């Protein structure tokens, strides 16, 4: 048993933390609602530097062309991104997009992974649909063979990083009924393909997404990633990794929120003394710190089980995301409340951090959905 970071991860953490601190202003500028509406949704310069720092490579195994890629590598990176409130789409381009190509792609397709690690290519996973909610197998979009071609028809919902992506990885059903795990395929689709329409918008917590319409989009069959209809397992694995990363990002954001709140309580004066001297607020701060430690342990559990059996993985991930969801809501709401009005303003960093924490609950399954999954898994 050992809860210390390895030397490599410690170095990664230190250099990433330093980089993000030094580039605070650029990071923050890219997260503001006003800016996000008129841009990629993130800062392209920072992206390049993250690649240079090896941050993207750390999310992939050596086999995949990176140099790390284990659960604790993901959490090390994403905890730092969360602390800094970064909206850079590492989850979408690297963990989901890159991860899926690495898992399913042929040699030609896998060259994209190298480019992802180099920071040259952006990806987006176009998987969720207007009616799929948080169900990974709920795919209505169809892929129909026409000779050597494939025709994609359907709509993809809230596709994060779609506008910046060079390629979209589109899920579509080749066989089976909506809701079947069997029959789902993934296709590598250039963003500028005919028959693909994006309606882009900013996200409340920073970054951008789009509604993606697939209107009889025609592809060569070799745009398929892997075998026909057999993509579910890879999707599940990628989303598991993304959930661990997201939980760690939220943990980092919770750290930032509690730290800002702690400092605010120490400096803010009211009724002639620092408000941190009011016992009611002290006890609430203590509760936040306790829940923060709970969240940290939950993330460690999930990361540490990312390479274990499917059942144990599922149990630990749903546990972590449920706990982080509950504790995160508490930390976000209490941090705002303990700050008062100032935290209600768009330009105050905590407001952004709180949005990151709360809105993370809307990806891959919210707190209650995670609880349901945990219950199912426990009963299984």
């Amino acid at each position, binding site marked *: 048993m050992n809860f210390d970071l390895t030397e490599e991860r410690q170095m990664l953490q230190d250099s990433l933390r330093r980089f993000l601190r030094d580039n605070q202003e650029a990071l923050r500028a890219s997260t503001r609602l006003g800016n996000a*509406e008129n841009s990629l949704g993130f800062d392209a310069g920072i992206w390049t530097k993250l690649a240079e720092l090896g941050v993207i490579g750390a999310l992939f195994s050596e086999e995949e062309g990176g140099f790390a890629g284990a659960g604790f590598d993901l959490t090390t990176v994403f905890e730092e991104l969360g602390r800094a409130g970064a909206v850079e789409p590492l989850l979408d381009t690297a963990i989901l997009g890159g991860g899926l190509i690495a898992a399913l792609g042929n040699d030609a397709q896998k060259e994209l992974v190298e480019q992802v690690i180099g920071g040259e290519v952006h990806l987006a996973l176009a998987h969720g649909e207007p009616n799929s909610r948080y169900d990974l197998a709920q795919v209505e979009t169809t892929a129909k063979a026409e000779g050597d071609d494939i025709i994609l028809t359907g709509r993809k919902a809230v596709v994060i990083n779609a506008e910046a992506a060079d390629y979209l990885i589109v899920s579509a059903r080749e066989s089976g009924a909506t*809701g079947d795990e069997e029959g789902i395929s993934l296709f590598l689709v250039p963003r500028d393909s005919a028959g693909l329409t994006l309606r882009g918008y900013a996200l409340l917590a920073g970054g951008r997404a789009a509604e993606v319409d697939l209107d009889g989009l025609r592809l060569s069959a070799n745009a398929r990633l892997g075998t026909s209809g057999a993509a579910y397992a890879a999707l599940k694995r990628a989303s598991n990794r993304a959930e661990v990363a997201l939980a760690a990002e939220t943990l980092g954001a919770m750290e930032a929120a509690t730290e800002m709140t702690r400092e605010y309580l120490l400096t803010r004066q009211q009724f002639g003394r620092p408000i941190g001297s009011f016992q009611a607020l002290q006890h609430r701060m203590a509760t936040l710190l306790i829940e923060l430690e709970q969240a940290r342990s939950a993330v460690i559990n999930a990361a540490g089980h990312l390479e274990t059996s499917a059942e144990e993985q599922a149990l630990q991930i749903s546990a972590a995301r449920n706990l982080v969801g509950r504790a995160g809501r508490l930390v976000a709401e209490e941090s705002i409340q303990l700050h008062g009005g100032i935290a*209600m303003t768009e330009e105050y960093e905590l407001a952004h951090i*709180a949005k990151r924490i*709360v809105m993370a609950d809307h990806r891959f399954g919210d707190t209650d959905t995670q609880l349901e999954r945990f219950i199912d898994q426990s009963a299984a």
Partner: protein
Amino acid sequence: MDLNYSVEEQAFRAEVQEFLAQKLPKEMSEAIRLGRELGKEGHEKWHAILNEQGWLAPNWPQEFGGCEWNAVQRHIFEEECCRAHAPRIVPFGLAMLAPVLQKFGSKAQQDHYLPRILSGEDWWCQGYSEPGAGSDLASLKTRAVREGDHYVVNGQKTWTTLGQHANWIFCLVRTDPDAKQQSGISFLLIDMDTPGIEVRPIILLDGTHEVNEVWFTDVKVPVENLVGEENKGWTYAKYLLTHERTNIAGVGFSRAGLDAVKRMASSQMHRGKPLSENAHFAARVARAEIDLMAMSTTNLRIISRAAAGQAPGVESSMLKVKGTEIRQEINDLARRAAGAYAMPFVSEALEGANEPDMGPEGSAAAAPQYFNNRKLSIFGGSNEVQKNIIAKVKLGGGA
């Protein structure tokens, strides 16, 4: 004990319903239902409709052109307005300043300002809060120095709601810098067109422009714009704050919000069933509804006592806390119901443009409202201040 409304009250409710059915414009109720912003013109239009009916000032005495309704009538009116998704009445002139003028203003001030509030000629905003003061209102620093026939005002106000629409502001200013805290404060009426006033927008965390900073640099205010006596402003301010507490429970908002949550949850499939039938989600909704049913009765208990002439005590602090907790919980439920479609920041949808549908009805406003309404437990006397008040009343007896 009788939980039923009297025959007269039921008739009154029917009258309000009839009025709303006929006079509330459909596009207006639609916008409110979807959580969209109404804009200045929308509010002015609704005020004009109410004014024509003679119902713009429910709480004003009849001598000033008000309805002089009792607490139960006002409650029925508010309840029906919420149910019909009518816009709320903008309170700054009508519900906040007017009672102060009616009680403490000069005849001239009453004759001049009150009709202009009803007619919509003046849009008032509030100059109470200052940066760094928070709930400690009495620590205000904006100075007004008497120079001949004028006060010269310097300082800064903040959290001024809808100040961008206002042409007048009522302000608390410090007129005696040597007096302690609550002494030495005066209540001034200031024309926003006076040179030296600058309004700067504050964008809230949900992207809305709802509040402002108002800066005063050597602003000259005629002495006749002083309300009541110099240095007695704190008395008037407290009187105003008491009146601000009407509809503190927000029962109508919560009820409308809960209906919206249920509609959205019925339309969203979750694991092969409507989300509304999911046990975990249904449990959250049910708890919120049960809490709301009880609070609604607590509210009626206080209203019924107020209608009988008894002043509300510490109960209004209790209502404030519970009422905001329930509203915030309902906002949280709406956010959950919206699923992934809670994430987009679609300012156009909020402002009423004709974007094609995205996500279930109401989903665009869900997360912004969740964040925006964190203010409910902060502004208007934070929930912590309310608990201090409760403790002071209930535990203040000393050892």
